[in-house]
């Protein structure tokens, strides 16, 4: 069976769905989204669901600030039937040295320069203790805090985009894996699915996360992308007691309470984590989390774990996304977000649609181009967990 569409988006995570939704709003063309499993089956549905403006690079601050504003309006903008689980309880990023605190101060200044309404402030130990009295403050010298950072439900947000996209005429096909991308010279002309179907299209968007490097090879592009497993666990629901999301980059630990009352707990261990397409959780992780989290908050020692799981970061050499056009005409990239992609999807969805339509994107994302690696113009984002 041969069919013809105007654009194929590969990947049914929040990025793929947001791109499809924005693109369908801009044009009446036939847009097809292909997902090999089900919507949010990959990194989106496995992420820690955080949204924050407290980044250390200009591009991430711009994208995050715009995205949080969009998340705040998402239910209305997409005419979704329910709230997408938005909870702006703030992010508290702990500093364990003066140099870390100084860096937070510089980040806060940069955030204010970019967005005059940014509310990031530095807190002293007393203020932290007042905000989260149960926190172990041993070694803590201060913190960076923004009250507008917080939580969005990844499943609901993805469904909100997918539902709106369908309403705007996008076709979403799940359980459909793209096994090949067809070229005509140096331009894209179609994709092949695992069922052997050929779909002709002049536009292919690779939003397949860590699996995107496989698709890159199909058109002869060797993406500087590797998978890195990260793990999370969720506790039983408790009455709301924890204000902000707590992050310690020093310990590689992060925890928060979701609107349902469950705690989501994560420990980053990039040095030892598996760097392969492995989405299985490990029993070592349970012990690591238990040790680190009861150190930060001894009060948590009696809570029960409900479930643990793993997901894949799509890591790049500078831990930043790869966005936009490539050397292959009609082949676009939106991947490589290295663990902070979920929260940037609202802005990136719009930007990708603008780029595909040949317009000037509302945020200049040229620093995130694939060419930056060849040119050696890396823009490391140090504030990832």
């Amino acid at each position, binding site marked *: 069976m041969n069919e013809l569409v105007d654009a194929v988006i590969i990947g049914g995570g929040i990025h793929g769905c947001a791109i499809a939704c924005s693109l369908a709003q801009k044009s009446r063309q036939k847009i097809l989204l292909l997902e090999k499993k089900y919507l949010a089956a990959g990194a989106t549905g496995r992420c820690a669901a955080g949204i924050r403006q407290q980044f250390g690079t200009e591009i991430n601050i711009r994208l995050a600030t715009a995205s949080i504003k969009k998340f705040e309006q998402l239910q209305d903008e997409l005419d979704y039937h329910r709230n997408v689980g938005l909870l702006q309880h703030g992010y508290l990023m702990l500093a364990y040295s003066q140099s870390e605190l100084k860096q937070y101060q510089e980040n806060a200044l940069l955030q204010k320069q970019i967005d005059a309404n940014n509310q990031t402030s530095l807190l002293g130990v007393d203020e932290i203790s007042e905000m989260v009295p*149960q926190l172990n403050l041993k070694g803590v010298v201060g913190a960076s805090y923004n009250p507008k950072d917080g939580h969005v439900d990844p499943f609901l947000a993805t469904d909100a985009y997918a539902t709106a996209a369908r309403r705007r005429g996008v076709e979403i096909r799940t359980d459909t894996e793209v096994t090949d991308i067809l070229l005509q010279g140096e331009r894209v002309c179609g994709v092949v699915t695992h069922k052997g179907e050929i779909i002709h299209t002049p536009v292919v968007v690779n939003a397949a996360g860590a699996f995107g490097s496989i698709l890159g090879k199909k058109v002869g592009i060797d993406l500087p992308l590797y998978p890195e497993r990260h793990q999370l666990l969720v506790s*039983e*629901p*408790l*009455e709301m*007691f924890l204000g902000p999301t707590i992050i310690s980059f020093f310990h590689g630990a992060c925890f928060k309470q979701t609107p349902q*009352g469950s705690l989501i707990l994560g420990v980053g261990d990039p040095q030892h984590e598996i760097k392969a397409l492995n989405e299985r959780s490990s029993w070592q992780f349970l012990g690591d989390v238990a040790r680190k989290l009861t150190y930060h908050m001894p*009060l*948590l020692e*009696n*809570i*029960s774990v409900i479930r643990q799981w793993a997901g894949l970061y799509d890591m790049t050499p500078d831990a930043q996304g790869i966005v936009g056009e490539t050397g292959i005409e009609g082949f676009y990239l939106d991947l490589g977000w290295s663990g902070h992609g979920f929260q940037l999807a609202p802005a990136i969805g719009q930007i990708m649609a603008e780029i595909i339509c040949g317009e000037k994107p509302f945020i200049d994302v040229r620093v995130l181009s694939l060419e930056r690696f060849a040119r050696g113009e890396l823009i490391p984002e140090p504030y990832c967990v």
Partner: protein
Amino acid sequence: MRVIQHPILHFQRGREIKFTFNGRELTGYEGETIAAALHASGVRALGHSPRLNRPRGFFCATGNCSSCLMKVNGIANVRVCITPLQEGAVVEVQKGKGDILATD
């Protein structure tokens, strides 16, 4: 009715001991679970559903279903169906999802 045998837990009945349920003094046996002692004393509602506040009782009896989460000695969300009864235990019906900050 008293649980004497259980498919996965051993009930070695020991001496009779006292404990409290919502401040009321009850008796049970060492070696049985808190839920078994409560059930034998006629207590049927162990908690309430979080959304509709309907009574929740003894259900799976194997620590899986979360129907019997109670506050025991000040600790929230204890699965009383698999927790052995101890002398002087303070067992209470908890409010809501379990208040981790409560100190009483």
